[in-house]
């Protein structure tokens, strides 16, 4: 028994709750089952004041169906990280309280002034905020997005050195077409399935510089592909030097927009093998992360979905081809009854292999009335054992394993600078949670600052500065690496598509 306890402590991944910053996600649930109510919960982690500590931004809901933030409880919130898990609410000073019902965030320095800016997808209108560098933000006009922008991500698709904005639009819902869905005889009203609403196209806003954006949805080819987007993630999956975009679609096949390098995209998900899981049926694709989990240098894809659909893991085989590896990676039995939203590949135990964290909950708050599935769920940690397979590691963190909620967004970031990645998780109608990584080992780690979506290679490991992560969430911070007990390699290579690789020293 002693040996077992020692073993768990030595090799497990452990998290304990840290003090909450104080944010509560207001989503305005009501008997009318307005669809936005169950779709809130993205977040952003970025260092808005360049003090070296990652700060937290939580988009928030609003009254429904008016979409009005009628009081401070609905404000979006920016929390300054003062260190040691102390956070100060600086929303008012920053001017980020916002308006409308916000769903997520996309953070990146779009004007190259050295300060990270913020796009907030929201109904009825999304907002772009420029970080003035003095702790305040100012709204920047952009072309109209929608009808329902739910997520977004920054990437420099045309390699002109300016971050462009990929807008993920969900579907054609409005309070006026909020159908009654459910079981009338039992008077069980549920959130409508996306099939009840028309698909919409995603959008691409080209950054022209000087704070101007142009909607190039038509000319880029994106307009040809109506979908029901939930999240986006970027990576150069075919290693052609141009960033591609993977978009999860709710109840439809996913999109993989291959960047043709000439300002246009072709939708390639079926050919690449990532449109559907191997079972061949459409699922409720939710969040996504797009990174190399098996250390073969190629970015892989993990997607969250609803109970019974599993969380498909698509392994990048090279030559533009993926193969679903959910079962062979031993994830399938661990996830089959889970419903997930936020998802991140991250090396929580600093052993040099990326683990998986998922923020769990069903979309339907009445799901247990008709199935054996639960609405509120605990989150999950899957430990990458050998670069190929995963094992459940949630129970190593008893408090995390015991906390069921309507979880939505999730990000990993080293909030206290101890070299271990902590977790920030949102939940509908509940305080945002910070989980402090207490994994007990002496494994080494480092963080490499890198431009958005740059690929960083250290030794045999590759990680990417993904700006769009999980469910409608965004991380704009240094890229994390763990090394186990091995000495830190001396240098890292940073590759930005279209630029010569740059070698930097690894910080001890």
């Amino acid at each position, binding site marked *: 028994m002693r040996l077992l306890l020692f073993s768990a402590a030595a090799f497990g991944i452990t998290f304990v709750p840290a003090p909450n910053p104080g944010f509560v996600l207001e989503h305005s649930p009501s008997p009318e089952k307005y669809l936005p109510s169950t779709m809130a919960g993205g977040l952003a982690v970025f260092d808005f004041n360049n003090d070296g500590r990652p700060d937290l931004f939580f988009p928030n809901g609003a009254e429904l169906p008016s979409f009005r933030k009628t009081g401070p409880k609905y404000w979006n919130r920016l929390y300054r990280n003062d260190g040691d898990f102390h956070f100060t609410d600086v929303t008012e000073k920053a001017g980020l309280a916002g308006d409308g019902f916000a769903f997520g965030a996309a953070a990146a320095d779009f004007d190259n002034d050295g300060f990270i800016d913020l796009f907030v997808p929201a109904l009825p209108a999304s907002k772009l905020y420029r970080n003035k560098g003095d702790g305040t933000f100012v709204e920047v006009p952009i072309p109209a997005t929608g009808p329902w922008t739910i997520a977004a991500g920054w990437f420099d698709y045309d390699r002109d050195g300016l971050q462009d904005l990929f807008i993920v639009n969900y579907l054609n819902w409005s309070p006026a077409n909020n159908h009654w869905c459910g*079981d*009338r*005889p039992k008077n069980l009203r549920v959130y409508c399935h996306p*099939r*009840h609403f*028309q698909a919409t196209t995603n959008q691409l806003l080209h950054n022209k510089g000087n704070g101007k954006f142009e909607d190039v949805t038509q000319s880029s080819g994106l307009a040809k592909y109506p979908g029901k987007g939930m999240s986006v993630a970027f990576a150069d999956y075919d290693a052609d030097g141009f960033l591609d975009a993977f978009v999860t679609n709710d109840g439809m*096949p996913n999109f993989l927009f291959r960047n043709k390098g000439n300002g246009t995209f072709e939708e390639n998900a*079926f050919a690449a*093998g990532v449109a*559907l899981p*191997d*079972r*061949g*049926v*459409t699922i409720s694709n939710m969040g996504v992360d797009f990174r190399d989990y098996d250390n073969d240098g190629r970015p892989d894809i993990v997607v969250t979905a609803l*109970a*019974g659909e*599993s969380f498909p893991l698509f392994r990048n085989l090279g030559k533009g081809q993926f*193969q679903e590896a*959910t*079962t*062979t990676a*031993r*994830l*399938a*039995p*661990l*996830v*089959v*009854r889970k419903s997930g939203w936020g998802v991140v590949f991250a090396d929580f135990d600093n052993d040099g292999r990326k683990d998986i964290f998922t923020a769990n909950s069903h979309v339907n708050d009445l799901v*247990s*009335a*008709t*199935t*054996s*599935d639960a609405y509120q769920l605990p989150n999950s940690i899957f430990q990458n054992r050998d670069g190929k397979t995963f094992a459940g590691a949630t129970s190593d963190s008893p408090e995390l394993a015991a906390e069921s909620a309507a979880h939505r967004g999730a990000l990993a970031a080293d909030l206290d600078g101890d070299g271990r990645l902590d977790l920030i998780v949102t939940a509908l109608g509940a305080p945002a949670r910070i989980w402090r990584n207490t994994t007990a080992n002496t494994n080494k780690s480092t963080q490499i600052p890198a431009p958005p979506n740059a690929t960083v290679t250290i030794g045999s490991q590759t990680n990417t500065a993904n700006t769009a992560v999980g469910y409608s969430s965004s991380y704009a911070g240094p890229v994390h690496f763990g090394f186990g007990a091995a000495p830190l390699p001396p240098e890292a290579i940073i590759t930005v598509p279209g630029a010569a690789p740059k070698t930097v020293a690894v910080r001890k």
Partner: protein
Amino acid sequence: MFLVLLLLSLFRLAAQPDGPAVLSQQARQAMSAGHFDEAAQIYRKLIVQLPNVGGLRMNLGLALFQAGKHRAAAAELETALKLDPTLAPATMMLGLCHAKLGEPLAALPLLEKARKADPSNATVLLELADANYAIGRFGPAIELFRELTSLQPANSTAWRGLGLSLTDHSQSLFARLPAESAEALTLLARARLAADEPKAAFTFLRQALTKNPHFGPAHASLAELYTKTDHSDWAAAETAKAAPASGVFAEIENASKEALQAFARLSALGPSAELHETEAEAARARGNHAGAIAAWRKALALKPGNPNLERGLARSLLQSRNYDEAIPLLTKYQLYSELGEALVESGKPAEAVPHLLKTRTPAAQAALGRAYLAIDQPAKAIAPLRAALATDTDGGLHFQLARALQRTGAVAQAREMDRISQQIRQKKAERQEAAGAVVITPP
């Protein structure tokens, strides 16, 4: 002289401690005490001494029947009837044995004969009704269940049997209607209306009235739909065109109504395993698997260990993705297709393969293909997936086959499967979109 010798010999046998009279007495006592296995052993001893006495074989059959050994009982009862074809109870018991063994065709003539001998025997009536129902003779089943419900108005099994027979009878009549006839389309509309899906009902009624603009029941249904959707003025116009149903349409409607009445009577009797079983089936049909599971559990509380109920529970647990509970029950009842499916769905495809290889149903073949694909054995996935392709309703099987073909290098075939898969998916999406876009318009 010979008779005298025989009688003397029988007398001597009977007087012995293990003679027929003593054994016979012991057997009767064992039967009375409910020790059926013991009774059967004693009857076997008796039969050794008196092998050609039909009555003894019948008694042995009865003991075995009571002990739940229906196959062995049937063999003894058959022998009894060969020895003495006039043994009416043996005929009845043999009929019941075949019924219990799930052999309704063999049971039917025997039970009919038994019924002639004893028309008021409720057990025979019930088994005869069940046997008729089992082979799809719904008309006779309905008559027998009606008779039984008059004989025993508090018999929940009888009311459930009547409801099921009437339901299946109406469905069999419906199946005989031309698929695109006004009658069939109106009946489909009525089912949708009952399920509170007015848009789908409206679509069917429009189609029905296109086929036959003067079909009175379609107008009556449309009037009902308009009333339900708050268009009373439109409803009035349709009511004027409505006419009562006749012919097969009326027969179907009447059977459905009587079925509902039978289920209502079952419900009025209060909680019973039959009531909960019916509730479970209804919940399952509506896709309410949690409700079905709750109802199966209630039924099982009243009839613990009942195989039919446990099988029903197992299937609902599977549909509800409660694999941990479903798998032991599916294993117990050797439901290999469902067991394999449960193992595949719960992420254990390698464990599923041996079970799925035991059955050849399209569902099992589909699951087998999926299992092989998941464990990265695409070559083995191809044959079972091809065998199941005809059942592909959402494009999934074609997609899986495409993946298997692609991974074995058959790229052109894979592309073709992908094309068909996308076509199926597209058509399904279009149907769903069309259904959602329906607007209920005036007459």
